[in-house]
């Protein structure tokens, strides 16, 4: 499957801004009601953007309900990103690791069965548990198009650092087999992750990471990223292109579009004007950089 060129992100809806706490609060006031989010997504759709890349935040369920019920948006796609980390991190503080795991799984019985096997089947525990977690997170997307399913960066980077690389393979297999979707990986550590995924035989992986002119949160360095993008076989998706507003839009998008082989760009915005402007800039600068390669399928 081909990735869409332009993906709409969701940080602005849930009060995430890497540069300013005040901006984040203003956004979370504006998007208090799901209807406010839905209204922006309708604008996004009308602007011709067909993908919403979204965290499996509890509030997403209501938004999914709306789009499921409206045939006008039948070709609107969701790229779910899981898990929503804060939900789990807070639970671990509250309940401890095992308690947190249990609290998020609806079917106590199934988990009990997994634990009963004990240490000798630790391998099955993790693989089985991965499946249960993915299914729990995917529930809200039932009946919607989810051609790519992402693992969030906190989880990817933790697993990467711990060296539990097999977990990436388990994730990939589960989303391919059960959801007929492509696995995607969000990370702040693209150079390290790409080597690991290649080592696991996950070819041409979809990797979403911060790619911006400032080099902000590009572990291993901006030059290293540029080299990988130019020479290695993977499907890079650029996020934090504007570094939360630290780089002016044209300059920011010019930089990303000048990199060869970046498949998609994720951006978030709240107003029709900004959505239109950013989308137009990406289209204009994509044509400048690579005449034949607008990949909006």
């Amino acid at each position: 499957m081909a990735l869409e060129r332009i993906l709409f992100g969701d940080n602005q809806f849930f009060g995430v801004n890497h540069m300013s706490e005040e901006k984040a609060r203003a956004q979370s006031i504006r998007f208090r009601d799901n209807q406010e989010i839905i209204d922006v997504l309708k604008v996004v759709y009308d602007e011709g953007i067909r993908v919403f890349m979204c965290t499996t935040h509890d509030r997403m369920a209501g938004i999914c309900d709306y789009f499921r019920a409206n045939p006008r948006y039948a070709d609107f796609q969701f790229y779910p990103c899981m898990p929503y980390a804060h939900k789990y991190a807070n639970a671990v503080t509250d309940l401890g690791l095992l308690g947190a795991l249990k609290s998020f799984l609806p079917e106590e019985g199934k988990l009990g069965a997994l634990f009963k096997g004990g240490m000798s089947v630790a391998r099955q525990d993790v693989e089985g548990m991965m499946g249960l977690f993915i299914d729990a997170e995917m529930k809200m997307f039932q009946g919607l198009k989810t051609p790519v399913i992402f693992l969030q960066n906190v989880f990817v980077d933790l697993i990467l650092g711990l060296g539990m690389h097999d977990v990436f393979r388990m994730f990939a297999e589960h989303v391919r087999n059960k959801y007929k979707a492509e696995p995607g990986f969000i990370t702040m550590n693209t150079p390290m992750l790409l080597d690991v995924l290649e080592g696991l035989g996950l070819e041409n992986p979809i990797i979403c990471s911060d790619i911006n002119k400032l080099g902000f949160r590009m572990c291993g360095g901006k030059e290293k990223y540029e080299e990988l993008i130019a020479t290695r076989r993977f499907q890079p998706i650029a996020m934090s292109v504007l570094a939360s507003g630290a780089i002016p839009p044209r300059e920011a998008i010019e930089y990303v579009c000048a990199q060869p082989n970046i498949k998609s760009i994720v951006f978030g915005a709240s107003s029709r004007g900004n959505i239109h402007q950013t989308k137009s800039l990406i289209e204009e600068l994509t044509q400048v950089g690579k005449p034949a390669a607008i990949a909006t399928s």
Partner: protein
Amino acid sequence: MIRAVLIGLGKMGLSHQAIINAHPDIDLVGVCDTSDYLLGILSKYTQVKTYSDYRKMLSQEKPDAVFIATPSTFHAEMVRVALEANCHVFCEKPFCLDTKEGLQLADLAEQKGLVNQVGYHFRFVATFQETKRLLDLDAIGRVHHIRAEAYGPVVLRPKGGTWRSQKSEGGGSLYDYASHAIDLVNYLVGKPQSVGGVVLNKIYSRDVEDEVYGTFYFANGLTGQLAVNWSDESHRKMYTKITVWGENGRMDVNRQEIQIYLRDKAKPVSGLSEGWNMRYTTDLTPPVWYYLRGEEYSAQIAHFAEAIKSGNRNTVSTFRSAIDVDLTVDAMVRNAENKSGLASIGA
């Protein structure tokens, strides 16, 4: 390569494990925890050796460095055992519940010339480092007041359960949250001499305080105020803010940005002009080799490893600076118990 082991695999411990394991100069050879289930998974899926007895791990692995991320009540004993085995030690905060013991351990580490560090990671956040730099340049003139605040959503309903809810284990928002804010005050303007008006209030917790307030008095006339509440759901995660007032301006700082107001008579500092100035984390933060949850977590481990390699013992966030926090915490507890300094308000 630095041979290292890690004791304690809670939330911070696992995060440390990932960061240490990813560090190019550290070889993480062993981890220790009491959870058999977690150890089972780690030994199955990673290269690291797992132990349930840290003394056994130390004697078998003979590490150069020990990372300790257990509940605070175990810190003193483990730090001592590690130092006696001539290991460099990185310990999570708060350092020691017993300050006398903490001081002995700092002495021991210094006598042996071992690198000793406590995980006050806000000292490695770029905006706070820049604030320190500007204060040292006297950018806002003589500082007369500092306010340190920390809010977050840790305890939002009545419950007990984990060690964070046990005073004797180093739980409570004074140890858990306020310690970071106190450490930032010490880092930025030096340590206070005394503390008054301390309030330690429970909101939901049964045994520990959920909110902490108090006033700091410094030798040079500077005063400070502390406001901490870990039962504040309006923040998505821990939010820490420092405000500093000087004769020639003011700085508002959080992990993302610095707002600097300079009066016209302020001493010129390169890049700053009269009125409001902004500095953003996106410009200030240098890249790290591996990122998990924040550059500062990697930066503090890199600092520790660098000191081991270079022999530099003039480091940031040492045992001794962490004891300054413990001493302040200690004084705050004593002050909160003593209500004799109150002035009643007349009719």
